[in-house]
C-alpha cells in the first residue's frame, strides 16, 4: 500500500471558498492571465474577498501583470497566501526564484495537489484560477478536486482560437462543468455569436502591466468590469 494522503484534505482547504472561477482557454497567448488578474483586481475592488492562484507553472506570469514583488506565503498550519492589492495571491514563482520549472505531466499534477493541500485560503467570496493553456494535468486536476469550479472561457476573434474554444465547450458540457460565459479578448470589428463580453484590443494595455492602478484605467479593464453582471460575477 502506498496511499497519497493529500487529496483527502483538499476539500477542507477549499471549504471556505464560495465560488471558484477557472479562467480557461485552450490556446496560448489569448490573454487568460491578464483576464484572470484583472478579474481578481475588479472583484477585490468591489469588496469581495478574493484569491488568485496562478496554475500555469511553465508560464507563470500573474506576478508580472500585478507587479507583485518580494512576496512569500506565511507558514501557519500550511501556507497562507500573501495579500497583494487586496488579493490573496498564490503562485509557483514564490518557490522557483523566477527560474524555469521544467515539469512533466505527472510532476505538474503532484505539485498542484501539494499546493492545494497546503494552501490555507480561509474565507473567500471568489477564488480565481489562472489556468494553463490546453486540457492537461492542471485542468484535469482542477476538475477532479475543485468540483464547484465555474469556467470563464477566454478566446480571441481568430478562427483558430474560436475552433479550439468550441472543442473545450463541448467537453465542459459533457462533464456538466458550468460555463459562466465567453470572453473575447483583443476584440475588433463585428462581434462573434455567443460572446458574453468583448474586451476591446487596447494598445495601452502592455504599458499598464505591472501597475494595477494603470491597469484599472485601461479599456480592457473597463470592458471586463462592464461585463461582470452579465457573467454573473457582480
Amino acid at each position, binding site marked *: *500500500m*502506498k496511499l497519497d*494522503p493529500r*487529496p483527502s484534505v483538499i476539500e477542507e482547504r477549499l471549504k471556505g471558498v464560495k465560488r471558484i472561477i477557472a479562467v480557461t482557454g485552450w490556446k496560448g497567448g489569448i490573454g487568460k492571465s491578464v483576464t484572470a488578474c484583472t478579474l481578481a483586481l475588479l472583484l477585490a475592488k468591489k469588496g469581495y474577498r478574493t484569491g488568485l492562484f496562478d496554475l500555469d507553472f511553465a508560464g507563470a506570469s500573474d506576478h508580472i501583470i500585478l507587479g507583485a514583488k518580494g512576496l512569500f506565503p506565511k507558514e*501557519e498550519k500550511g501556507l497562507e497566501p500573501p495579500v497583494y492589492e487586496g488579493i490573496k495571491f498564490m503562485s509557483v514563482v514564490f518557490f522557483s526564484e523566477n*527560474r524555469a520549472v521544467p515539469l512533466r505531466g505527472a510532476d505538474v499534477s503532484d505539485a498542484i495537489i*501539494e499546493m492545494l*493541500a*497546503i494552501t490555507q485560503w480561509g474565507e473567500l467570496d471568489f477564488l480565481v484560477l489562472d489556468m494553463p493553456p490546453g486540457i492537461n494535468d492542471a485542468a484535469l486536476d482542477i476538475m477532479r478536486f475543485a468540483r464547484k469550479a465555474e469556467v470563464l472561457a477566454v478566446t480571441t476573434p481568430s478562427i483558430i482560437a474560436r475552433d479550439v474554444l468550441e472543442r473545450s465547450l463541448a467537453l465542459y458540457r459533457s462533464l456538466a462543468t458550468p460555463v459562466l460565459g465567453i470572453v473575447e479578448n483583443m476584440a475588433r470589428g463585428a462581434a462573434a455569436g455567443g460572446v458574453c463580453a468583448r474586451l476591446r484590443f487596447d494598445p495601452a494595455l502592455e504599458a499598464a502591466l505591472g501597475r494595477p492602478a494603470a491597469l484599472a484605467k485601461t479599456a480592457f479593464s473597463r470592458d471586463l468590469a462592464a461585463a461582470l453582471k452579465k457573467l454573473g460575477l457582480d
Partner: protein
Amino acid sequence: MHEWALAESVIKAVVENAGNKKIKEAGVLFGELQAIDKEIFVFALEELRGQYPRAAACRFKIMDEPAVFRCKACSREFPLKGLKKTRDEAEFIHFIPEMAHTFLKCPECKSPDFELVAGRGVSISYIK
C-alpha cells in the same frame, strides 16, 4: 508549521481509508526529498487527534524513505546525497518537492528531466 497541513491530510486519509475497523496503527513514510520536520509533524498529529476521534488511539509509525532519482535523458539512477542546493532552494523543495526539477540536476548529464522514483514526500504505507 507547513507540516501541520500534511499531518492533517495523513490523519484524515487514515480515518477515511480504514473502513469500519478499529484503527490501531498506521505507517507513515517520510520521503527524504521533502525533509519533513518529524518533531513538528508528530506534534501536529497529537493536536489533531481531538478532531478525529476515530484516530484517537492510532499509533503513527514514521519511517524514512530514501530519495531515488532516475534521469530520463541518460537513465542514471542517483540519490539525493551529493546534489548541490542552497538553503533557500532546499526550503523551496521542502514546500513543493517538484521544485527539485528547478534546482537539482542529474550528476551525469546535468539534465533536470529526471523521475522521482522514491522518497518524494509524505505517504501512508499501511493502516491496521
